[in-house]
C-alpha cells in the first residue's frame, strides 16, 4: 500500500518534472548560460551592421528564446516570433526550424497544445528539408510529449518511436535517451514495471556513455522508483544510494531533494523510520528554500505518515494538514487523496469521528475520480500499446531481414571460398541462422496474435457496453411509453363513446315528425361527431408514433439519415422522459417548459440515434434538479427543465441549436471536461453506465455536429446540441 502510493505520487512528479526536462534536451548547447548574459551578448552584436542575418547572432537569439520559453512562456512569444522572421529573411533554415520549435515549447508551456503541435509540425517540415535532418528527432520527441499530455497515447508512442529511430540514424544520443525515457514513463503508468525498468536502464547506459551526471542520477532515481513499486525495497535502496551519493557530489539541490525524497519513501517502506524522517525533513527544507511545491507536499505527507506509524498523532495531524494545504494549492489530486486518507485515520484514532468521516468522504471523492481516469487511460493505452508493438515488430522484422541479407551475402562469399575446402560446413551455418530467424519470426507472430486477441476482446467488450447502455435507456423509457400510449388510448375510448351517444341522439332527433325536428341541433350534433372523429384520429396517430419511436429506438440503427422534424422529436422525448420518471417514482415532481422555433427546417439525421441523445440529456436534466437529495437540500428550488430549439449561424452555414437546461446543482468546472468521457458518472454506483454522455457525444459528432456543456454551479446546467442543416 505504502509503496504503491509512493509511486503514484512519484508519477505525477515524473510527468511534470521530467517532461519539461526532456523538452530542453536538444537545445542545451552551452549549459551555464543565463538570460542576462545572452541578452548582453546580443546587444553587442546589434551594434554591427547586418547582424540580423548573422547566423551566430541568430543562434544566440534562439538560445535566449529557449530560456525565455521555459521561464516566461507568455511574454516570450513576441521575441520568438521576431527570431522566426529574422531567420526566414536570412534564409537560415536551421535557425527557423529551431525558432519554430521553441515557439512550440512556449505554447506547450502555456497549455496551448494545439498551437504547439502546429508549430512543431511546421518546424518538422523545414527540418526535414535540411540534409542530415539533425533536428528531426528532437521535434518528433516534443510532438510525442504534447500528444501524451492530450491523452493520445497511440500517437505519442508512435512519435517517440520515430524519434528513437531517427536519433539512432543521426547518432543523437541525448534525444534517443529522452525518447526512451518517455516510453518508459508510459510503461510505468501502465504498470508494466519490468519493461519500464528495462527502458530506464537503457537511458542510464546512454547517459553514462555520454557522461551526463545529472541525467545519470535521474535514471537511478527512476530505476529505484520502479524497484520500490515492484516491492523490492532493498534493491531500490542500493540503486538510490548510488543516485543520492552522486547528487551530493554534483551539489545540485534539485537532484539532492529528489533522491532524498525517494530514499525516504524506501526507508519508510523498510520501517527505518528515523532515517526516513531525516530524509523527508531534508526534502522539505530544500523544497521550501527552492520553491519545489509538489515535492514539499509529498514529503510533508510522508512525514505525517511516519509520525502516525510512531503513534504521535498531534505531530502527524499537523504535518498532514500542512501537506494537504500544499497539495491543494498545487492542485495534485493524488496527494490530496493520500493526505485525506491519512487524516481520516488520524482523526479516527483521536476519537474525532465527525472529522474522520469528513476526511474519508474527501478521500473517497478523489479516489473515485482518480480510479475513473486511470481506467480510461488504461483502455486508451491498451490500444496504443497494440499499435506500438505492431510497429516495433515490423521494425524488428525489417532489421532482421536486413541482417539476413548482409549475413547471407557475407556467408555466400565465405562459402564460396570455403566450399573449395570444406564442402558442407557453410550449409550448416546457414541452416542454423535460418532456423534462428524462423524461430524469431514465429515468436513475433505469436506475440502479434496475442495482441490481436486482446484488441478483439477489448472491442467485443465495447460493443457489449454500448448494447447495455442502449437497453438501459430503453428500460428508462418503458414507463414513459406506457403513460404516453395510455393517454391517447383514453381519449380514443372516451371520444368514440361520445360519438356513439351523438349518433344515438341524432337518430332520436330524426325519428321525430319533420315539423318537430330541430335542424340546428342536428347540425350541431353532426359537427360534434366530426370533431370526435378528428380527435380519435389524432390520438390514434399519437399512440402510433410512440410505438414506432420505441421500436426504432430498440432496433439497430440503419445509419440512414432522413429529414426529421426536430421539434416533434425533441418534444416527444421530453414527455417520455418526464412521464417515465414520474411513473417510476411517485414522489417525482418537476416542471418542464419548451420554446420551439416554429421556422426550424428539417434536419438530416438518424432519428433513433439522436433520440438516444435527447432522452439521455432529458433524463440527466430531470435527475439533476429533481433527485431527492438535491430537493431536500434546496427546498426553495422548483425543479425545471427547459427545452428550446433555434436556427443559428450564417446563411451559408446554418445550424439547428437544441438546448436542454436544468436548474439543478450545476457541474463543477473541475469535472466539466470529464462528463463526455466514457465510464464517467456521478450517479450512485449501479444507477448509470457512465456511457450515456460519451455515446451522445459520439452520436452528435457522427452527425457533423457538436455537443457542448455550460454550467453555472448553483444555478443551471445547459447542454447544447448543434446539428448542421
Amino acid at each position: 500500500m505504502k509503496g504503491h502510493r509512493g509511486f503514484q505520487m512519484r508519477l505525477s512528479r515524473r510527468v511534470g518534472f521530467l517532461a519539461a526536462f526532456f523538452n530542453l534536451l536538444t537545445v542545451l548547447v552551452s549549459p551555464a548560460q543565463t538570460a542576462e548574459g545572452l541578452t548582453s551578448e546580443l546587444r553587442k552584436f546589434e551594434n554591427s551592421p547586418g547582424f540580423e542575418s548573422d547566423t551566430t547572432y541568430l543562434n544566440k537569439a534562439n538560445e535566449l528564446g529557449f530560456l525565455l520559453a521555459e521561464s516566461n512562456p507568455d511574454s516570450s512569444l513576441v521575441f520568438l516570433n521576431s527570431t522566426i522572421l529574422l531567420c526566414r529573411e536570412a534564409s537560415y533554415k536551421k535557425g527557423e526550424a529551431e525558432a519554430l520549435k521553441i515557439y512550440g515549447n512556449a505554447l506547450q508551456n502555456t497549455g496551448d497544445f494545439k498551437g504547439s503541435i502546429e508549430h512543431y509540425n511546421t518546424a518538422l517540415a523545414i527540418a526535414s528539408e535540411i540534409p542530415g535532418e539533425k533536428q528531426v528527432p528532437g521535434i518528433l520527441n516534443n510532438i510525442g510529449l504534447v500528444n501524451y499530455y492530450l491523452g493520445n497515447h497511440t500517437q505519442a508512442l508512435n512519435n517517440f518511436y520515430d524519434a528513437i529511430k531517427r536519433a539512432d540514424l543521426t547518432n543523437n544520443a541525448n534525444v534517443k535517451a529522452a525518447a526512451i525515457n518517455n516510453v518508459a514513463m508510459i510503461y510505468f503508468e501502465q504498470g508494466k514495471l519490468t519493461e519500464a525498468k528495462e527502458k530506464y536502464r537503457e537511458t542510464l547506459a546512454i547517459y553514462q556513455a555520454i557522461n551526463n551526471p545529472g541525467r545519470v542520477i535521474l535514471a537511478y532515481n527512476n530505476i529505484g522508483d520502479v524497484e520500490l513499486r515492484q516491492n523490492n525495497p532493498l534493491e531500490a535502496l542500493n540503486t538510490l544510494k548510488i543516485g543520492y551519493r552522486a547528487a551530493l557530489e554534483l551539489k545540485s539541490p534539485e537532484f539532492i531533494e529528489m533522491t532524498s525524497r525517494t530514499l525516504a519513501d524506501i526507508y519508510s517502506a523498510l520501517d527505518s523510520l528515523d532515517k526516513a524522517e531525516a530524509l523527508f525533513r531534508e526534502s522539505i527544507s530544500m523544497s521550501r528554500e527552492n520553491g519545489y511545491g509538489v515535492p514539499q507536499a509529498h514529503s510533508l505527507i510522508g512525514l505525517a505518515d511516519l509520525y502516525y506509524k510512531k503513534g504521535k498523532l498531534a505531530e502527524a495531524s499537523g504535518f498532514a494538514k500542512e501537506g494537504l494545504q500544499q497539495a491543494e494549492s498545487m492542485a495534485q489530486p493524488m496527494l490530496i487523496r493520500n493526505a485525506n486518507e491519512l487524516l481520516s485515520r488520524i482523526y479516527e484514532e483521536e476519537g474525532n469521528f465527525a472529522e474522520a468521516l469528513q476526511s474519508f468522504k474527501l478521500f473517497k471523492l478523489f479516489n473515485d475520480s482518480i480510479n475513473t481516469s486511470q481506467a480510461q487511460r488504461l483502455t486508451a493505452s491498451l490500444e496504443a500499446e497494440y499499435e506500438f508493438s505492431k510497429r516495433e515488430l515490423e521494425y524488428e522484422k525489417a532489421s532482421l531481414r536486413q541482417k539476413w541479407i548482409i549475413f547471407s551475402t557475407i556467408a555466400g562469399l565465405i562459402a564460396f571460398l570455403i566450399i573449395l575446402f570444406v564442402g558442407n560446413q557453410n550449409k550448416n551455418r546457414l541452416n542454423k541462422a535460418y532456423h534462428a530467424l524462423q524461430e524469431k519470426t514465429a515468436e513475433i507472430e505469436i506475440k502479434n496474435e496475442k495482441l490481436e486477441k486482446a484488441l478483439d476482446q477489448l472491442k467485443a467488450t465495447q460493443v457489449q457496453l454500448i448494447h447495455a447502455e442502449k437497453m438501459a435507456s430503453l428500460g428508462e423509457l418503458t414507463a414513459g411509453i406506457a403513460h404516453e400510449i395510455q393517454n391517447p388510448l383514453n381519449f380514443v375510448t372516451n371520444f368514440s363513446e361520445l360519438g356513439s351517444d351523438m349518433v344515438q341522439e341524432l337518430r332520436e332527433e330524426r325519428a321525430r315528425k319533420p315539423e318537430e325536428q330541430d335542424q340546428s341541433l342536428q347540425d350541431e350534433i353532426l359537427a360534434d361527431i366530426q370533431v370526435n372523429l378528428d380527435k380519435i384520429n389524432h390520438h390514434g396517430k399519437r399512440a402510433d408514433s410512440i410505438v414506432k419511436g420505441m421500436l426504432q429506438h430498440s432496433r439497430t440503427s440503419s445509419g440512414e439519415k432522413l429529414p426529421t422534424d426536430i421539434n416533434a422529436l425533441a418534444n416527444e422525448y421530453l414527455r417520455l422522459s418526464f412521464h417515465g420518471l414520474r411513473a417510476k417514482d411517485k414522489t417525482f415532481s418537476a416542471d418542464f417548459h419548451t420554446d420551439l422555433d416554429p421556422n426550424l427546417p428539417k434536419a438530416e439525421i438518424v432519428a433513433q440515434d439522436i433520440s438516444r441523445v435527447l432522452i439521455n440529456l432529458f433524463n440527466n436534466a430531470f435527475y439533476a434538479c429533481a433527485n431527492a437529495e438535491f430537493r431536500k437540500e434546496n427546498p426553495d428550488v422548483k425543479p425545471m427543465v427547459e427545452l428550446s430549439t433555434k436556427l443559428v449561424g450564417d446563411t451559408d452555414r446554418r445550424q439547428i441549436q437544441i438546448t436542454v437546461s436544468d436548474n439543478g446543482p450545476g457541474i463543477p468546472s473541475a469535472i466539466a471536461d470529464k462528463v463526455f468521457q466514457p465510464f464517467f458518472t456521478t450517479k450512485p454506483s449501479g444507477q448509470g453506465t457512465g456511457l450515456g454522455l460519451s455515446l451522445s457525444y459520439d452520436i452528435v459528432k457522427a452527425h457533423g455536429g457538436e455537443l457542448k456543456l455550460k454550467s453555472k454551479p448553483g444555478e443551471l446546467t445547459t447542454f447544447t446540441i448543434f446539428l448542421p442543416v
Partner: protein
Amino acid sequence: MKILFVDDERDVEALFRQKFRKEIKSGELELAFAFSGKEALEILGAENPPKFVYVFSDINMPGMSGLQLLEEIKSRFPMMRVSMISAYGDSENYDKAISSGAKGFFTKPVDFERLKEEIAALNEGS
C-alpha cells in the same frame, strides 16, 4: 353550478363540453378548465370564496402534480370538494389522494355515468 376540471391534456375540454352539452345549454352546469395546477389555483383564487362547487383534477402533470394541488386546495379552501381523475388507479395514488381529503377517485378512461352521478348528487345534496 360551477365545476373546474384540471388536466394537462387540452382535449379534455372538448370531451367534457360535449358530454355535458345539454347541462351547459340549460344553464344547469358551468364548466371551467385549467391546464396546470398553478392555473387552477389562479382561477380558484380569483374570487374569495370561490364560486366553484367541485374540482376534478388529473394527477400526472408537469410542474405541480394533482396530489400537490389537492393539498394546496384543501389548505386554502378546506370546504372545496376535490376528486382525482387519473390513468393510474394504483393503491399508492388512491391512498394518498383519499388521505389528503379527496372526495372521490376516478380512473381514465373516464366512466361518464359515474361522473354524471357524482355531479347529480351535488344537486340533491344542495
